[in-house]
């Protein structure tokens, strides 16, 4: 098969791959239309694109890579694949640009739940896939994703391994659906997920991202979820990459009337992660809770951009992201809340807190509001600080050694977020990730904020 370069997609190569995969012609056309859009686009430029202002694309992302599609491990499960979210009710594993396996429990299948390869679904569930795939990205010229940048349109054109999930109306899944993206081969990986929840459906989707040590790869991921009326959706995304992975992710939910959506991202791995958890509130009464925790260490760069669009009236959003940093690391929080002029009765809040543990780390925070409607309640805030010397002294004065006291305080910092998630396995997995980072931290280097000390007489 023709080698496909991420930076030089060709109509010929895309057509060849689509045909070889047995995709229906509408899907091939869909890909080619996206490909045509990419031709007019450049890769993001910090000087021109405000959403890229803080992260220099050309320095943090290498697009001069071949697109990995073969599934280099065949049907062999790579030894490096480990799951921390061990809730194997339903599991799909995407390895090196191919679907390695799909496990759909009988109890799910009996209720009409579909979990399958996206290419297969394009044939077998053509109506659903056709009407929704790309509808939140660049395929819909009237949609909120119409102006997606090139990192997204290349996915629309050239996505490889994909998963399709359909939870029919009124089906409430008690166990989560796990989708694991695992990378062993160098190159560009373009995983894609499309999920549709019918009205009054309930589901939790766990996205777990892992890689082999030392693999040099770019992962450009797009996840679209349509949550129809009064459905309940949880998305949990764990970024557990090894050091060599660059990760671009758009995880976007369209929330219809009276839906309840939670999104939790836990970012600890990867050299650069730019994560866009987005939610369009298109029906009245919809609620979204975008939550994030992250821990950036030496050399890591995390750019987190939750984006909520209040398009319908009387919807609610509450964004909370908390991150800790150490070593020469960088985090960017750019929260966006957009309130349409007709979205009366909107209730929104957005907050970011950063804990700088050692010298040399830098956290940028921009909790941004774009409000076209007066009749709303909106709040936003951000704060960056260090560990409070008084907290540390209090714990130490009770006999707790400094290292252990610091660990307790850092874990406590994240508790506010994790305390909101009651999904099976998630808190343990997230805490384990954070604790592993704190364990590895050079606690002797931790700087504390002693400003509060001066207030005591």
């Amino acid at each position: 098969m023709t080698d496909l370069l991420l930076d030089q997609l060709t109509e010929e190569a895309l057509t060849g791959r689509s045909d070889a995969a047995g995709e229906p012609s509408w899907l091939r056309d869909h890909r080619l239309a996206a490909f045509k859009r990419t031709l007019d686009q450049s890769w993001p430029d910090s000087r021109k694109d405000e959403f890229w202002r803080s992260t220099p694309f050309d320095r943090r992302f290498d697009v001069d890579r071949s697109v990995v599609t073969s599934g280099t491990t065949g049907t062999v499960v790579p030894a490096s694949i480990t799951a921390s979210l061990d809730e194997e009710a339903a599991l799909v594993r995407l390895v090196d640009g191919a679907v390695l396996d799909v496990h759909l429990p009988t109890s799910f299948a009996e209720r009409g739940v579909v979990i399958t390869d996206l290419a297969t679904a394009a044939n077998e569930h053509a109506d659903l896939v056709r009407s929704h795939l790309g509808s939140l990205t660049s395929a819909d010229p009237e949609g909120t994703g119409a102006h997606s940048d090139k990192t997204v349109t290349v996915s629309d054109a050239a996505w490889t391994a994909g998963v399709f999930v359909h939870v029919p109306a009124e089906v409430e899944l008690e166990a989560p659906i796990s989708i694991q993206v695992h990378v062993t081969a160098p190159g560009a990986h373009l995983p894609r997920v499309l999920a549709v929840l019918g009205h009054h459906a309930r589901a939790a989707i766990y996205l777990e991202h892992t890689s082999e040590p030392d693999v040099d790869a770019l992962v450009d991921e797009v996840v679209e979820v349509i949550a129809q009326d009064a459905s309940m959706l949880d998305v949990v995304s764990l970024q557990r990459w090894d050091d060599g992975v660059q990760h671009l992710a758009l995880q976007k939910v369209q929330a219809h009337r009276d839906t309840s959506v939670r999104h939790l991202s836990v970012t600890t791995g990867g050299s650069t992660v730019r994560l866009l958890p987005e939610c369009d509130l298109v029906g009245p009464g919809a609620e979204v809770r975008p939550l994030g925790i992250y821990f950036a260490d030496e050399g890591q760069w995390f750019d987190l951009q939750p984006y909520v669009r209040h398009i319908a009236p009387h919807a609610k959003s509450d964004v909370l992201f908390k991150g800790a940093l150490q070593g020469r690391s960088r985090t960017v929080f750019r929260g966006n809340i957009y309130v349409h002029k007709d979205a009366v009765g909107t209730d929104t809040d957005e907050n970011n807190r950063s804990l700088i543990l050692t010298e040399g780390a830098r956290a940028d925070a921009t909790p941004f509001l774009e409000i076209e409607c007066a009749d709303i309640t909106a709040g936003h805030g951000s704060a960056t600080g260090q560990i409070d010397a008084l907290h540390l002294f209090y714990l130490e004065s009770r006999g707790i050694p400094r290292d252990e006291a610091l660990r307790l305080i850092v874990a406590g910092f994240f508790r506010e977020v994790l305390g909101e998630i009651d999904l099976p396995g998630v808190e343990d997995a997230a805490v384990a990730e954070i604790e592993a980072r704190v364990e590895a931290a050079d606690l002797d280097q931790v700087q504390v904020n002693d400003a509060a000390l001066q207030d005591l007489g």
Partner: protein
Amino acid sequence: MADLEIRDLKVEADGTELLHGVDIELDKGKTLALMGPNGSGKSTLAYAIAGHPAYTVTGGSVRWKGTELNDLTPDERAKLGVFLAMQYPVEVPGVSLTNFLRTAVNAVNEEDVPVREFMTRLREQMSELGVNQSFLQRSINEGFSGGEKKRFEILQAALLRPELAVLDETDSGLDVDALKTVAEGVNRLSGPDLGVLIITHYTRILRYIEPDEVHVMFEGRIVASGGPELADELEEHGYENLKTTA
């Protein structure tokens, strides 16, 4: 030699000397009340004993059971049996109270108390001190009223079983019932193995915890010492007389 020997202690904070040479002796089994008006340096002494990072010892010594505390970190002092019930207990968001207490008990006793046994002990102490069991779900001091924080300090002392308890204004912010409960809690801990240093502005708490000795501090120095009757004098005449004699 007394168990606690403070000799010519000089302490400064933020570049200002607050204690100008303080001498105190206290043996285990005894209770010493340190009284004085606001700003006299009582809390500074308490913090210096516990090793608060904002206070620098510039001279003199604090010896506890023969060991110089000034050379030790706060947790090392706690392991030697030193406990400070703070005037303003700190809220530490997100750190669960149960986890904190168990970590502290294990660290001080250098053992690993089984969770069940620990929880039993904790619940006993909570009911004795009238602390609501629902607090187990909370973070350290978070959402506690002033009185609840003070009770929680004594609860910690009860679990950590110190040999030297420094109670810094433990009575302030407590109504009479709460004061009695807290004082009873302290008295339960008392015995031949515990020295108590009560720091207080008012004599109120001394009606429930009887001191063997009373020192009065003013402007960073001990200006008067005596038996329990000294507290009664202060109750009657206030600190005004001292200021003229100092």
